């Protein structure tokens, strides 16, 4: 049985981040960073990396087998909720052999199997696991959108093509297919490996994550979204005009709201349009705002939100300066109501932990490093690509499985499809 770990995203405890480790190797793994721990109980320990540098002073809860949430041996690290600290701890745990990040719902599954949960508890947790699955998916969408998304798509195509070429020489050996496909496969794999290595240690994903939270301003054209953004940022970031449809692309402005790192997105106004360029802008804006942590739905007096209002979203009425109603709202122009809005945003965000993104980044990094190891093994076998096609293919399969979470699931049908469209198979 593997030992698994994950950031337990305890809600409403923004100041503390809890990393939970469960499985037969839990105690010994954490002891490697903290020194000896009691079998069962609390202790305050310095957390150190292998070089001995101090990472954090943490409260450690250790649970004996049979006396924990999962029924297994468990250690919990209660860390200061800094993304940097959490990132280091997750990385250190991931580097211990036999430990891996938990899949969504895996702690609960283990608890269920060990008889530590009843049906009602499982049903109560199902929502939470769905939310976790969805949050992971959204994070992945967010990280792998735009330029990074194109990259992931390229990796996916290259991996499918490589696997298809190798599998074709195996499964269709008596057909009219090339015998030695190693030059093309080598090129494809080397390219993926290089790009992946850059991304694994690189900055782009980290930048996305360091943004902290994303807040999107959505609403119909000319409702005052851009004016609000400018007011929040205190500078003219978006072009504002009184003509509808001015903001065609997504404007991002990073700012610190009540001490929280927030990127505010100003999206194209939502309306029916014949202008293709504007339509694209609207679609991109919608996709991006759905992936944000929080949406501010701006409506005209008497209007309705154009997008679905999710839990925690904020609906405000705009332009209270020109309306003569007494309704609660804001004015980007005069600043009326803006302070109240900022505190509502920060209150909502504080209830969520800012470290989810960090955990996701670590998950992606481990996936890429795993894939790189497999790809390296495959590249080493290239000189014997014909004789060692079986183990080469196995390494590719393993690499693809590692990056499934990044590039989307690759099925044997994708590989067969590539083979049948490239080669004339069939005697």
């Amino acid at each position, binding site marked *: 049985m593997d030992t698994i770990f994950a950031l337990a995203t305890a809600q409403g405890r923004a100041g503390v981040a809890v990393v939970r480790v469960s499985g037969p190797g839990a105690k010994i793994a954490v002891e490697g960073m903290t020194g000896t721990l009691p079998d069962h109980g609390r202790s305050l320990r310095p957390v150190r990396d292998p070089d001995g540098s101090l990472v954090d002073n943490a409260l450690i809860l250790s649970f004996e087998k049979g006396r924990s949430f999962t029924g297994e041996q468990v250690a919990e690290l209660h860390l200061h909720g800094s993304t940097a600290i959490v990132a280091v701890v997750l990385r250190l745990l991931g580097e211990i052999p036999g430990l891996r990040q938990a899949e969504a719902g895996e702690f609960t*599954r283990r608890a269920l199997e060990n008889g530590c949960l009843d*049906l009602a508890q499982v*049903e109560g947790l*199902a*929502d939470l696991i*769905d939310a976790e699955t969805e949050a992971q998916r959204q994070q992945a969408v967010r990280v792998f959108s735009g330029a990074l998304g194109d990259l992931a798509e390229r990796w996916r195509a290259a991996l499918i093509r490589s696997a298809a070429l190798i599998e074709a020489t195996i*499964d269709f050996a*008596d057909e009219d297919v090339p015998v030695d496909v190693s030059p093309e496969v080598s090129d494809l794999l080397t390219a993926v490996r290089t790009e992946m290595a850059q991304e694994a240690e690189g900055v782009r994903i980290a930048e996305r994550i360091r943004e902290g939270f994303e807040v999107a301003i959505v609403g119909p054209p000319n409702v005052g979204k851009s004016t609000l953004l400018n007011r929040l940022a205190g500078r003219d970031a978006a072009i504002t005009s009184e003509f509808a449809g001015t903001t065609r692309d997504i404007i991002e402005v990073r700012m610190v709201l009540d001490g929280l790192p927030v990127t505010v997105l100003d999206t194209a106004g939502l309306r029916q349009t014949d202008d293709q360029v504007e339509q694209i802008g609207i679609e991109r804006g919608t996709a991006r705002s759905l992936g944000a942590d929080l949406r501010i739905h701006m409506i005209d007096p008497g209007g309705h939100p154009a997008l679905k209002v999710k839990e925690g979203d904020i609906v405000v009425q705009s332009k209270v300066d020109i309306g003569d109603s007494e309704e609660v709202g804001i004015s980007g122009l005069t600043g009326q109501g803006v302070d109240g809005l900022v505190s509502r945003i920060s209150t909502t965000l504080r209830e969520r932990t800012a470290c989810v993104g960090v955990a996701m980044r670590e998950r992606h990094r481990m996936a890429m490093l795993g894939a790189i190891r497999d790809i390296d093994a495959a590249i080493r076998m290239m000189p014997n690509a014909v004789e060692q096609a079986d183990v080469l293919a196995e390494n590719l399969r393993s690499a693809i499985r590692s990056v499934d979470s990044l590039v989307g699931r690759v099925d044997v049908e994708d590989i067969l499809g590539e083979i049948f469209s490239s080669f*004339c198979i*069939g005697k």
Partner: protein
Amino acid sequence: MKHREHDVIVIGGGHAGCEAAHAAARTGVRVALVTLDQRGIGAMSCNPAIGGLGKGHLVREIDALDGVMGRVADFAGIQFRLLNRKKGPAVQGPRAQADRARYRLAMQQEIHNCPGLDIVLGEAVDLNIVDGRVCGIVSADGSILHSKAVVLTTGTFLRGVIHIGDASHPGGRMGERPSVRMAERLDEFGLPLSRLKTGTPPRLDGRSIDWSGLEMQPGDDDPTLFSFRSTTPLARQISCGITHTNDKTHEIIRENLGRSAMYGGHIEGIGPRYCPSIEDKVVRFADKMSHQVFLEPEGLDDHTIYPNGISTSLPRDVQEDYVRSISGLENAIILQPGYAIEYDFVDPRALTPALALRDVPGLFLAGQINGTTGYEEAAAQGLVAGLNAARLSQDLEPVHFSRTTSYIGVMIDDLVTKGVSEPYRMFTSRAEFRLSLRADNADQRLTSLGRDLGLVHDTRWELFSTKAEALEVARLRIGRYSFSARELAGQGININPDKERRTGLEALSLSDSTFHQIASLAPELADIPTEISEQLKRDALYATYVERQNRDIASLRKDEADVIPSDFVYSGIPGLSTELQLKLNRTRPATLGHAARIDGMTPSALLLISARLKRKQVARPA
């Protein structure tokens, strides 16, 4: 007609039917094989070959379970080739050209000589249904044949339609009538039926072919047979010819595309992508100047040649034109034109992993009726359906084959979980545990299981037990030795000069080491027979990879052990989306592992099902 009571009735004497009837009879129940014509038993209606990649693996597995296909193919084999001989053993597949007549003869003998198996001549036109259960069949003369379970193997006969050019007529095979009433009965059950299509090339008279300028492909010098019980080919061995299509051929085909049944819009069924007609090849790969054609003799005393690679549904005169444009075939005489055939199949997601129809108790389906193609795929399903029909008749629990131990398991899991979008054929790439599921170790994987199920009889069991013991002893002996890196390097093995010592097995797992080199370091091992040492080497070769896969295998097996009862209620589980409830109700997964592979399944949904199962398990003993 004198009707003895039978436990299992198998309808159809093709590859699925023969294997089903034989498997059921091996477990000791009384079986009737119902077929129209005794001479049709064991007929190869498409190409005269058995095995290949993935397919050869299936034949080995059938043989490991004491089935008939491997033995019969060995008797009939006139050219044996081990595909991928230069690659690793995991991807090597035995293949043989078979003499059609010898194959039929050997299969008929196997069926005749099988204790407890009766051949009943007649047409099964309907099923005998009592209280919603299938309890036998109705013959064309109206008589009823009783049984506790029925295996239906209709091949391409279910509402079969044959197309040659723009002409079409109902037919199950060239010159044989289709089954229509049975199809109507299946309609009444409300089963999800659709159409598939397959094709054959024209058959040529070998005496009209000019072989002098053609490349010839002989079999292997050291033939690899199918059955673990066979040692050497019994028939005279021959070569196949190879020729190629050319510009002229493609031009003729392009000019006449509109007259092809496929391209003229006469066919609605979906054909396989990996077995395209020559029309398809010319259209889809227009820049390819030439396609290979294998000229495969259909038998030693038969002049018929099967030109593999040019299946077609063009009219006869166009077939003649394009065939004669090919080098060596300038004067070729067509004995039977190529044709396309369309037939009904049942969406295999309506089946349990025992190949029983979930909603029609007592009825099992095997072969092309489940959307597959190929003799080997059909035979493997026949074995599973026959075995489970016999078990049902004895009130025993069904047996499911796992993806982790056999290609049979991979195929059935793919079918019942994902369904089919084109005729399903086995490929080694479908098996995620390919390195463990090898043709060479099919007996190590399955023969003990087969013995427990009553499928494996004494002769094979003794042979297998002797081999298994010899392997175990040899493995222990070689494992007792250990060698330094220097010693191994001294034998010419490519190894880093580290300080570690390696056991004999670890040394054997190095990719370029041989048993001979290791025996040079430990001469006491030299008495291990070659057959055993070669098998040890094959097992050792993948040891590190297999170890890596073991975690996946273990977790899959754990999920497969969580059996979901067939009456499990998905509706009303709080938190389970309506969409997933629909999917689960349609597929009715047999285990939690099966459920996990359903498209769109989420971790929380699995957890919810698992929690319900746990509660049921706790509740049951009370």
